[in-house]
């Protein structure tokens, strides 16, 4: 028999295969496409602000799937099953976050260097952005899970999550963009970003699980 975590993980992956996972990447591409229309097709400028555009696009794209992260499970009752599973709610939530990241965050990390080419980023910069996003998107997913858990069952939840989560995500953005940029600070910023990702990987599941427990009381 599979463990509860493995079952949940494979179930979420199977559900994501049904569609929706690619939508985040399309949205990401749209943000990258819209920016030259806003600032002009000047490649020198785009190269300079490229990492920032990629980060903003990825940040907004990670918000897209969040309202369905727990809401769908709440609607079909699987949230109750998850709570009853023979495993801690915290680790179950962590599993859900991991599955969510694999299906929505990882495609963004893979797509970022591709979109970076369109912004005329150098190969070095492409690697740095991808590495920083690989650390930053899990942090965003963990934070996002808190917002998703707090708004489970609310009618206006979809709009509320970004309002709750984006202020908290500012450190990830600051250090993410710095780690993507060229310069002496990039290495240090990358370590801080890794630290943030680890910290939020603990804070996120615990707070989200607490919010889900409060919902069940």
């Amino acid at each position: 028999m599979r463990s509860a975590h493995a079952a949940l993980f494979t179930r979420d992956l199977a559900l994501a295969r049904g569609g929706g996972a690619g939508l985040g990447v399309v949205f990401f591409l749209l943000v990258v496409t819209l920016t030259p229309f806003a600032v002009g097709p000047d490649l020198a400028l785009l190269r300079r602000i490229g990492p920032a555009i990629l980060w903003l696009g990825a940040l907004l794209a990670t918000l897209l799937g969040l309202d369905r992260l727990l809401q769908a499970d709440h609607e079909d009752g699987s949230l109750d099953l998850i709570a009853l599973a023979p495993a801690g709610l915290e680790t179950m939530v962590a599993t859900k976050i991991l599955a969510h990241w694999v299906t929505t965050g990882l495609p963004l990390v893979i797509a970022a260097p591709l979109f970076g080419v369109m912004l005329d980023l150098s190969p070095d910069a492409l690697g740095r952005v991808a590495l920083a996003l690989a650390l930053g998107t899990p942090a965003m997913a963990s934070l996002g899970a808190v917002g998703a858990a707090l708004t489970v069952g609310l009618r206006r939840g979809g709009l509320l999550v970004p309002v709750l989560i984006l202020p908290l995500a500012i450190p990830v953005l600051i250090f993410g963009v710095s780690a993507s940029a060229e310069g002496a600070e990039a290495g240090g910023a990358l370590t801080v970003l890794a630290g943030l990702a680890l910290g939020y990987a603990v804070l996120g599941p615990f707070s989200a699980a607490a919010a889900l427990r409060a919902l069940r009381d």
Partner: protein
Amino acid sequence: MGLISAVSSLANPARFAAFATKALPWLAGLSAALLAVGLYMALFVAPADYQQGETVRIMFLHVPSAWLGMMAYVIMAVASIGVLVWRHPVADVSAKAAAPLGAAFTFLALATGSLWGKPMWGTWWVWDARLTSFLILFLMYLGLMALRSAMEEPSRAAKACAILTLVGSVNIPIIKFSVDWWNTLHQPASVIRAGKPTMDPSILTPLLICAIAFTVLFVTLHLAGMRTELVRRRLRTLRITTASAALAPEPAE
């Protein structure tokens, strides 16, 4: 011991409401008197700054507002622990009443800072580390209030807001640190930073009086808000009981 039992007796909502009703007129009077003294000293007695001229008087409103904007969050964080650990209804009432006050004082601090910035920095807004941190704090207050207003049931809203407040309070030092770091990385050249001169008593005394006056004002408004909220909740319970009594033959829910 007497003080502790006196304070803990206020945890009873009815006794708290009675205390608030009794204390409010005194607190209101005290804050009015302190504000009058503080503002008179700030606007007429305190000398104008030799560099900044009369605009320095904005400080007497700006600094206390900023201090209360931060204090409100601390109160909310402590109250949130009360909600989650002791599941106490008055703690949630306190957290709920503090949120709009904190948002208002944070907004006041931002607005006065912006008004002060125009003559000092030549622009209404600079992405200065402290201004930016305060803007984020303001946004966090708005998020908390939005979450609260999206939930109809008070007990669920209490726990959700408490969790979000505590997550925020873990994050605030991180945000502060990262914004400071970001700001030193992109230090704008236009900001003229005066050094930090030691404050003369002629300015420090009015500032302290203003800070105390604002704090008493905050306590007054907070108590009034809490009392109103307690009444509102009692009203809600009454409505629900009347409604369920009208539907008595059918089982509730």
